[in-house]
């Protein structure tokens, strides 16, 4: 039961909607209530479009059997695209990181989505990630370089180091995306870890 006393006065279906909305990430009781009232107010068709969209993604969206990106086909758009460079594989932890890389319009290779990061304190080890599937792809395909694009956090670092150790013996070029000062950032405000990595990843001009 919710802690908000006014919940007691909601009609049952409305209380249920508020309770469901509250489960969404970043949504508190107040926002859930506001969203529920909004949905009540809009035309029926509009609300049904939302309901159908939710039902449809749950039905039709699955994982690409090659790269584990979200897709409504067996292979995702990127894996089906014959113009992509199959010698270059970028490893990301989540589909949203893949989307971020795609928005740059810079990367023309293919991806592999791990569906998580190694997080020792949370008990998330390499076994629950799509690492075995990654290894299988490397044995079979023409991949020459693996670019590790994990976050510059402890978990992202752990994942990148683990993969590098696993993949290097296969004779592949393994690289990691550079990290350091954020664009528009201030050198004076940067912490030691950021400055150290900015120094490590420096390049000749």
């Amino acid at each position: 039961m919710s802690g908000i006393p006014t919940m007691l006065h909601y009609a049952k279906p409305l209380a249920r909607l508020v309770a469901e909305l509250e489960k969404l990430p970043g949504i508190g009781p107040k926002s859930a209530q506001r969203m529920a009232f909004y949905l009540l107010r809009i035309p029926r068709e509009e609300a049904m479009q939302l309901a159908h969209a939710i039902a449809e993604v749950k039905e039709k969206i699955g994982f690409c059997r090659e790269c584990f990106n979200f897709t409504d086909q067996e292979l995702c758009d990127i894996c089906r695209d014959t113009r992509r460079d199959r010698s270059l594989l970028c490893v990301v932890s989540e589909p949203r990181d893949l989307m971020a890389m795609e928005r740059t319009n810079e990367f023309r290779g293919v991806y592999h989505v791990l569906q998580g990061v190694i997080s020792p304190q949370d008990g998330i080890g390499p076994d629950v990630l799509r690492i075995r599937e990654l290894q299988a792809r490397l044995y079979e395909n023409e991949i020459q370089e693996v670019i590790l694009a994990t976050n510059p956090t402890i978990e992202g670092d752990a994942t990148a180091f683990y993969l590098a150790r696993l993949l290097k013996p296969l004779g592949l070029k393994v690289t990691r995306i550079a990290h350091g000062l954020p664009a528009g950032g201030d050198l004076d405000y940067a912490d030691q870890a950021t400055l150290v990595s900015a120094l490590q990843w420096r390049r000749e001009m």
Partner: protein
Amino acid sequence: MPVYNADAIVLHRILLGETDKIVTLLTREKGKLNAVAKGARRAGSRLSGATELFTHSQMQLAVGKSLDIISQCQVASSFPTLRGDLELLARATYLCELTDRMIEEREPNPEVFDLLLSALYLLQRAQERPDLIVHAYELRLLAERGYMPQLEACVRCGGALQRRQSAFSPSLGGVLCSGCRFSAQDAIALHAETITFLHALASADPETLLALAPSPAAAAETARCLRWYVRYRADRDLKSAEFLDSLRVQASRQHNVSRG
């Protein structure tokens, strides 16, 4: 809101909403406490570096209704050497989880703070044998909590230990003489060398500690004893200890592969 300053090491963090973190800090002044770091997950946030695991910072915190809020921070060390090596990173993470597990909230204990901070610094210099620092820290943290294992005489009969054939019992909290070594179900066999090594781990000064070179047998027995003893005192296995195990498995697998 009243504010206070604290010397803090990040033991654990969880994500809160889209951009915030809740961090578990070990502070020198107030012991272990949870605090909110607002906006710490935004790229370029001044709090993002200071709220990473095992980073040491001087912080200013504001007393909040339920959780205190980090208002300012200056990173003293983010231990780049530990972050740059999987084996060290995994061990530093384990030290933090162990500390979090063994320490109560809001009980000031500057000795434990200093112990953890020096363990992190020493770990940076222990690339060859990082487990020396891990095991020394385990023993010293347990001693600080009143759980120093009995290594001088038999924990059951008080008798002297013979040169050979002794054992260690996690549940009895110490070594067993050759006469008593079958009396505990959880007894782990120990060589005399391992007992000497455990003594050194518990009391050696930093330079001596870094120079210790146990035999493979003593190192393996020590790891087994402390793994079980920590599990017994912490009431469960630590998650980062399991990750360390998986690293050891990977390392030995690759070792075998490279041998043919």
